[in-house]
């Protein structure tokens, strides 16, 4: 079984990610279906009669996978926005990088 750490930490991180991801339409993030579903699933698996519960571990692994998905999507979007989201520079900006200015040609080029 993968080394996942305590389930509480995964749950808290997952709820924090969901808080950032949801609540766009004005509804508080607590009412989002994913938030409620995750909380309900963790509560349902809290009490079992077995010492080593396979369903608990499966749920924990799924939660950790979903956490990884949300986190890496957010980081990827942030990196994209910062480094790759701006397109090319216009000819005026490129000229300005080396201190030149494009000539004004009111009659058009050539």
């Amino acid at each position, binding site marked *: *079984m*993968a*080394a*996942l750490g305590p389930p509480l930490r995964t749950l808290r991180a997952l709820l924090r990610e*969901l808080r950032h*991801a*949801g609540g*766009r*339409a004005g*509804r508080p993030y607590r009412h*989002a*279906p*994913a938030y409620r*579903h995750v909380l309900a699933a963790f509560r*349902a698996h809290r009490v079992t*009669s077995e010492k080593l519960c396979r*369903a608990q*571990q*499966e749920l924990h*692994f*799924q939660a*950790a*996978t*979903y956490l*990884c*998905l949300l986190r*890496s*999507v957010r*980081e*990827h*979007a942030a*990196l*994209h926005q*910062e*480094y*790759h*989201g*701006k*397109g*090319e*520079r*216009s*000819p005026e900006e490129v000229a300005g990088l080396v201190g030149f200015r494009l000539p004004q*040609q009111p009659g*058009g*080029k050539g």
Partner: protein
Amino acid sequence: MWRGCRPLCWGLSPAARLPRSPPGPAGRGAGRPGGGRAYAPPAERKRFYQNVSISQGEGGFEINLDHRKLKTPQAKLFTVPSEALAIAVATEWDSQADTIKFYTMHLTTLCNTALDNPTQRNKTQLIRAALKFLETDTVCYRVEEPAALAELQKNEWDPVVAWVEKRYNVAIGSSTSILGPSIPASTKETFVSHLASYNSWALHGIEYVITQLKSLVLSMALIDRHVTVEKAVLLSRLEEEYQIQRWGNVEWAHDYDLCELRARAAAGTLFVHLCSESSTIKHKLLQD
């Protein structure tokens, strides 16, 4: 550029009256002096819906954007068999801010692929495509020098290979030659019969994970919950990590690729697990 091909997703009902996407760069550059035009990234669709909700139909669970039902690129109704998967897809749509970034919606893409099956593949073809990665599996190809990298590969990859060999009772091995290891036919048959036990939706997910991680061994270890997603991605990129440790990290390339690979592998794994599980709750009452 990002790995893999452009995701297929538009996911909009063709019957809905929606503003068409604006024309490409040619239209935008018409006003510039001298006819020169700069490339600006194509304008993305704005978020046109307020609420995302889930409803249950006859085929499964559906997603509603405001009052419109979500459809696949081939205009089929978007139905998923599992409620948790529907909730995750709805969260993806809900987490879009002003513009819709389709390249971040991996679960939606996977569902669209499974529903539309644009390459028209049945289960046998999917399994064959997945098995093809075994002959060129990343963890089976070892280098001889530099010695530090060879040592790292031995320490990190050997346990995973041994675990998979033990779990499926097969022989895989590793090799340093350019032809790679020779995989016996019994190994392939074992994997074929194991993969055949998944349904076709889960097979789409499995094949996706294998294509992203470039390794069947790592994907099997991941889907069987032996390694976490972060660890599987690390093992898949072992040589890159080694070079990063040696020469330094470039954020806009290395971290970008790492996040994208993690997102895709996590989405694929989650998709497989949600498509192939069924849960029942048995309540035991205490006798007072």
